[in-house]
């Protein structure tokens, strides 16, 4: 058991966990009833699953060029996936794709009504 085989094993475990998270997110995407809950399921492979896959790849490749590129890719994904998720959720709410009975708290409708009641001068 050398260090290299240990790193290989850790990389294999990370790759397996990342693939499992992708599968779990896909199952949630099929089974969940609502656009917002599907968004919740979709963010699992988008962040943690991808991070695990990229960590496994970095542990397998073990070169600094690969590690920096993969860290850059993970950071990009961390910054971009909340933006697109926010846009999808916003469009779902404005398109009335949201089932109001499933919401525990709906602060956005209160804010919208308030902003309609007293418009800015």
């Amino acid at each position, binding site marked *: 058991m050398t260090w290299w085989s240990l790193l290989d094993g850790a990389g294999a475990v990370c790759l*397996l966990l990342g693939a499992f998270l*992708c599968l779990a997110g896909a199952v949630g995407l*099929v089974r969940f009833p609502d656009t917002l809950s599907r968004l919740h399921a979709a963010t699992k492979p988008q962040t943690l699953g991808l991070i695990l896959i*990229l960590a496994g790849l970095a542990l397998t490749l073990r070169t600094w060029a690969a590690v920096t590129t993969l860290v850059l890719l993970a950071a*990009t994904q961390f910054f971009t996936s909340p933006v*697109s998720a926010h846009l999808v959720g916003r*469009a779902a709410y*404005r398109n009335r794709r949201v089932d109001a009975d499933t919401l525990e708290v709906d602060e956005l409708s209160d804010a919208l009504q308030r902003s309609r009641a007293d418009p800015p001068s």
Partner: protein
Amino acid sequence: MTIVLAVALAMLGAAAALVLVRLFAGPSNLDRIVAAEVLLVVVIAGVALESARQRTTTYLPLLMILGLVGFVGGVAVTRFLSRDSDQSDGPASEVPQRAERGNDVPTEGRERP
């Protein structure tokens, strides 16, 4: 390592099939956008698995480009959809109508002189 990669690839294939089901059956286009983004993540994971199998760094720019293209495409289509439905949607239901302020199209100066 080969067995691990085969199992991971099988899980990714099952995930891609399930995402395709949602992409085909999603009631609204927003569900399809979400499914398409997840499908792109699955593709990225598959390319990463192939890169780990060959132990080569050739595919890393491809991963980078896939991530960026997926983000830009998803945001563009979502913006297109939300703008379209803001202006031509039907009567109100329990979720309130869009307020006047904060609109995408700048209306100030036209409605209130």
